[in-house]
């Protein structure tokens, strides 16, 4: 669990995934946030978490494609012509941030992010970290960005 504390200029959202895995909650939340810019995910096991989130992410993508094929609403069709290419070109990585700084969704440990703070619009914290680490890791995020903290972890 991450203590409550002020991070200046940012929104904070605390989430409890309940009985479902964090990866499922995170993939769905990621759907809106990937449209806002880069995303970083703090986790103890970046490779494992990436695989789990990606699997859930494909379910979200399938839903979007189903919506695209079933709708007759011209506005929705136009919207999905913007969103679907973004899905296809989204780059997920569990490499260290120094090795692949241009990824759209970066999974890394807190130690790696402290070395290379993410410049992202959304940071998900999916493992316990200290408040001072949270402050440091969010220091390069633009104002009004979002930090999502998973409480059950």
């Amino acid at each position: 669990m991450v203590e409550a504390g002020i991070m200046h200029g940012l929104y904070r959202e605390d989430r409890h995934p309940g009985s479902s895995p964090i990866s499922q909650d995170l993939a769905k939340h990621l759907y809106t946030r990937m449209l806002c810019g880069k995303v970083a995910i703090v986790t103890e096991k970046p490779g494992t978490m990436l695989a789990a989130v990606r699997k859930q992410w494909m379910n979200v993508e399938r839903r979007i494609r189903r919506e695209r094929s079933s709708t007759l609403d011209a506005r929705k069709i136009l919207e999905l012509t913007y969103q679907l290419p973004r899905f296809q070109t989204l780059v997920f990585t569990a490499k260290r941030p120094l090795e692949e700084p241009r990824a759209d969704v970066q999974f890394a440990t807190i130690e790696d992010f402290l070395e290379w703070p993410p410049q992202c619009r959304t940071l998900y914290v999916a493992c316990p970290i200290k408040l001072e680490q949270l402050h440091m890791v969010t220091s390069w995020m633009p104002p009004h960005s979002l930090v999502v903290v998973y409480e059950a972890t």
Partner: protein
Amino acid sequence: MPITQFPDDLVPKQILVCAICGQLIPPDKATAGLFNADNFQLFACNAHFWESNRFIVGWIEFAAQERLRVMHAGRDPGSLTDGGGGYYARLVS
């Protein structure tokens, strides 16, 4: 639980509006979503999050409407969801 902190240059709002159903919601029942055409953070009822299709389709409808607003304002329609804007450091206190 959900929204527990607002940026300190904004007056914390007691009531938010759900971008999906239009209902008023307190921050502890909200989840953050997209930016609107004016670049403001929007929220939705956390309850929608668990209604699989409602959540995703709701945001698609919202984004479609905001993208039209962007186009009518003569801006690049891609700017709504390309995560644009430069990055810079905030001061850490």
